[in-house]
């Protein structure tokens, strides 16, 4: 069915409009350079013994050195362990919350959904910092509180540990996006399946356990596996909590290699390449798994569910638990960011006049802050606008009936590459390109280099959003303009562009926000002149300036939330994958 569909639509316009065909291949080539080249450079770089930009000396010593170091394999292993362990509680909680929101009469379900949406946009690094304020063995508030309990001598919480990292992951980024993905899936589950179970004598719980979850299990599993792969890209939490006590994941290990003096590019690229192989194997199995599961998706029945499970008195328990979870994972850390930013010395509540605005003053009077703010705004604006321009064109090429099969397939896969490629590896590959090529002048250590890296990272979501928008419009509107006498350019400018403007605004805002808060991407690419705010926050945290860091982190968080709320007010739907 699908094959014959493509066969029908593809060869249209072939042979005509040569410039269009040329444009297509130019786009493919450009994309191959943009997303594929960093990978190639990363791999080649691992066999280069000289520093980037110097004369190339080939050899396998990098690999030998990287793997004679026991830290390398243990870092890879640690990445996988953390990613696996953190998935389990997060998935259980996310499934439960999505089920409560979508299928039960829990009061305020819509509000809960909205809170998950908002929490998803709260930047993670400030929250990790907040958990340090709460859990640090010496000055962490919760540990201080615990000490006042009987029979407790030392600190009972320690964030600088495997379980600490897992906990912070679960609390900060664990469940929000998963709930957003799972809720619509639960909604679509045909009500008749559940009703049949109820009529057969099963209670609510049995129905959920024996019918709903097994039916949805392929999708739940798919989300879990994807979360696991995305979890491997994690960097911020491990950097802040793991590095001080020698817990390394591969991404923080790469960061260490590059940041040591002189930078160990060889080892870093060797480690990155190994990880790419691991990733490729994982993706292959994920793909195989998805293909095998496709036939299970009979779930979206016409019986769209309106009947909700009645929780009875349990609904207040359920609501209470959800609110408690939000309080602990979101509100509590945010409160402590505020407190932290106003304390003379964090953790010392008993000194004379413990509260001060001095850190905020210091922050705003710090010339580095102003420069970073400027850098951040330039980077975020460039990323947002560049992304809109580039990916709206790519999406147009993808859906165009004029596109040939080869073009759309290569473009499609190139667009998805950055989705699974960890930001740090993309940056490492780009860093190599920047250093080893004449682009060095323009891109190395400049805001433009960072913006370019961020634009590449935005490709999957942005392209999909535009693609969905164009598909929804259909070809008629454009063709009507052509027949009415408008040239292709005129029709694009006057008809298509205004119609996709809301989507452009949405993804622009999203990309602006993520550019502002990203750490993994700029961390290898910035210099003193191009340091963005997020990196400044990282530096404050490492320098032990927790109070000023809390202030800056809070600032970024509030700014981000405000932007997303304004976007939502404008009627823009800001879900992860398009409209």
């Amino acid at each position, binding site marked *: 069915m699908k094959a014959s569909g493509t066969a029908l639509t593809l060869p249209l316009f072939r042979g005509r409009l040569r410039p269009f065909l040329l444009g297509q291949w130019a786009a493919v080539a450009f994309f191959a350079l943009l997303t594929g080249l960093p990978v190639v450079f990363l791999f080649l770089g691992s066999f280069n013994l000289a520093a980037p930009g110097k004369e190339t000396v080939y050899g396998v010593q990098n690999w030998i050195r990287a793997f004679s170091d026991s830290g390398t394999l243990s870092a890879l292993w640690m990445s996988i362990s953390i990613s696996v362990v953190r998935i389990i509680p997060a998935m259980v909680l996310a499934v439960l919350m999505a089920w409560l929101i979508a299928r039960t009469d829990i009061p305020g379900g819509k509000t809960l959904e909205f809170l998950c949406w908002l929490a998803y946009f709260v930047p993670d690094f400030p929250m990790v910092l907040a958990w340090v304020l709460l859990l640090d063995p010496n000055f962490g508030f919760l540990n201080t509180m615990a000490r006042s309990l009987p029979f407790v001598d030392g600190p009972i919480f320690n964030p600088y540990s495997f379980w600490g990292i897992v906990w912070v992951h679960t609390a900060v980024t664990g469940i929000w996006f998963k709930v957003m993905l799972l809720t619509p899936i639960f909604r679509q589950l045909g009500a008749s399946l559940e009703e049949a179970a109820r009529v057969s004598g099963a209670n609510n719980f049995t129905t959920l356990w024996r019918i709903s979850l097994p039916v949805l299990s392929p999708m739940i599993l798919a989300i879990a596996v994807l979360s696991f792969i995305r979890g491997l890209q994690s960097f911020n939490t491990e950097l802040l909590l793991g590095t001080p006590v020698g817990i390394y994941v591969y991404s923080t290990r790469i960061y260490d290699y590059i940041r040591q003096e002189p930078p160990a590019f060889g080892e870093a690229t060797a480690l990155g390449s190994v990880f790419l192989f691991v990733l490729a194997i994982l993706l292959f199995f994920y793909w195989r798994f998805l293909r095998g599961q496709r036939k299970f998706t009979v779930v979206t029945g016409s019986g769209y569910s309106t009947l909700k499970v009645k929780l009875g008195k349990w609904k207040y328990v359920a609501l209470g638990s959800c609110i408690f979870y939000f309080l602990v994972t979101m509100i509590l850390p945010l409160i402590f960011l505020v407190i932290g930013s106003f304390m003379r010395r964090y953790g010392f509540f008993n000194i004379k006049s413990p509260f001060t605005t001095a850190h905020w003053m210091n922050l705003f009077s710090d010339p580095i802050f102003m420069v970073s703010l400027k850098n951040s705004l330039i980077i975020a604006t460039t990323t947002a606008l560049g992304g809109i321009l580039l990916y709206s064109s790519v999406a147009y090429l993808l859906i165009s009936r004029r596109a040939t099969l080869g073009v759309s397939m290569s473009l499609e896969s190139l667009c998805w590459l950055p989705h699974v490629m960890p930001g740090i590896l993309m940056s490492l590959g780009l860093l190599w390109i920047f250093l080893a090529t004449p682009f060095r002048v323009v891109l190395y250590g400049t805001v433009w280099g960072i913006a370019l890296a961020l634009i590449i990272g935005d490709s999957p979501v942005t392209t999909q959003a535009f693609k969905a928008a164009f598909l929804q419009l259909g070809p008629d509107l454009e063709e009507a303009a052509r027949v*009415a006498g408008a040239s292709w350019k005129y029709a694009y400018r006057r008809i298509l562009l205004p119609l996709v403007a809301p989507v452009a605004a949405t993804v622009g805002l999203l990309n602006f926000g993520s550019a502002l808060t990203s750490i993994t991407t700029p961390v290898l690419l910035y210099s003193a002149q191009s340091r963005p705010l997020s990196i400044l926050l990282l530096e404050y945290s490492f320098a032990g300036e927790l109070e000023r860091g809390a202030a800056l982190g809070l600032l970024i968080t509030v700014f981000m939330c405000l932007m997303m709320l304004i976007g939502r007010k404008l009627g823009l739907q800001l879900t992860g994958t398009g409209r």
Partner: protein
Amino acid sequence: MDQPVLEFSDVTKRYGEVTAVDRVSFTVAQGELFTLLGPSGCGKTTTLRLVAGLEEPDGGEILFNGQPIASPARGLFVQPEKRNMGMVFQSYAIWPHLTVFENVAFPLKVRRESAQTIRKRVLEALELVGLGGLEDRGATQLSGGQQQRVALARALVYTPSILLLDEPLSNLDAKLREQMRFELRSLQRRLNLTVLYVTHDQTEAMTLSDRIAVVHQGRLEQVADPVEVYERPATSFVGEFLGRTVSLEGQMRREAGRGWVDILQGMGRIQIAEDRCGHLREGEQVRVITRPEDIDILPRGEAGVNQVAAKVDEVAYLGDHIEYSVSVGGRSFLLAAGKKERYSVGSEILLALNPAQVTILKL
């Protein structure tokens, strides 16, 4: 004869293995409403898109006002915006971000008309389609019928040499469809428009068209005026597509300048005028096609000329008329009849055919 506005000669369009339009030739004359009629997927819309320049032919040549506009052999292709044709899409393709006025003004703006001219002509066009006073409405605030009128006004505002209509009535409800059909026809007459019309609805085609081309699997089965297409279908597909038909097999007989068909070895004989069977030979197997409404049911007696023996299998009382399922030989079909004479199940009857309303096809 005047030069045709549009001329297709041997135009072919392939999508991979599938030939959507297969060596199609026809002409559309000035002021004519020419309809492409056929089931979905027969290639009629593709033909229309070939005219508009939204598809490029793989073979043949398309001439517009005597000038070639697409000719793969000569490597010639005129872009859609250079063809000066008006088109109404099935989905209407009203641009949702523009008002009614802006939608209709778009083709004139593209042609860089002065603001004054644009205003005058847009208002005229809206008046013409009965939308005067709605020019400031947003396009999305319109009903389906109104959207269709906007699309029509937009296609007419720059007085194109030909108007292309792609199933323009299929998205309207039944009552509105009838009204628009009527308006479309009177508008076409009044402005003497040349129209190429695509539809799968035979009633639409019959009532609107000057000429109909019945399209089947990318080929034109018959090009003729509505009466001829209906009454003398060139192929059995045309006959069946245009309504219920009765088809009987028989053998051609010719003798001393007369011709008749022997139905199913002695069930009856149908006389055929010489000009209708001149191409058929003695003894040839043929098919006689006619419409149920051209058949009268008579009580069984001596079978006369143009009468066929039959039997009633089933009777359905439908209030204002009675429907009989009758069989001739092994073939059965439905016939409607008045209530004056009634026949019960199992009755032997005679079917009287009107020889002027039968079509003879070679088997």
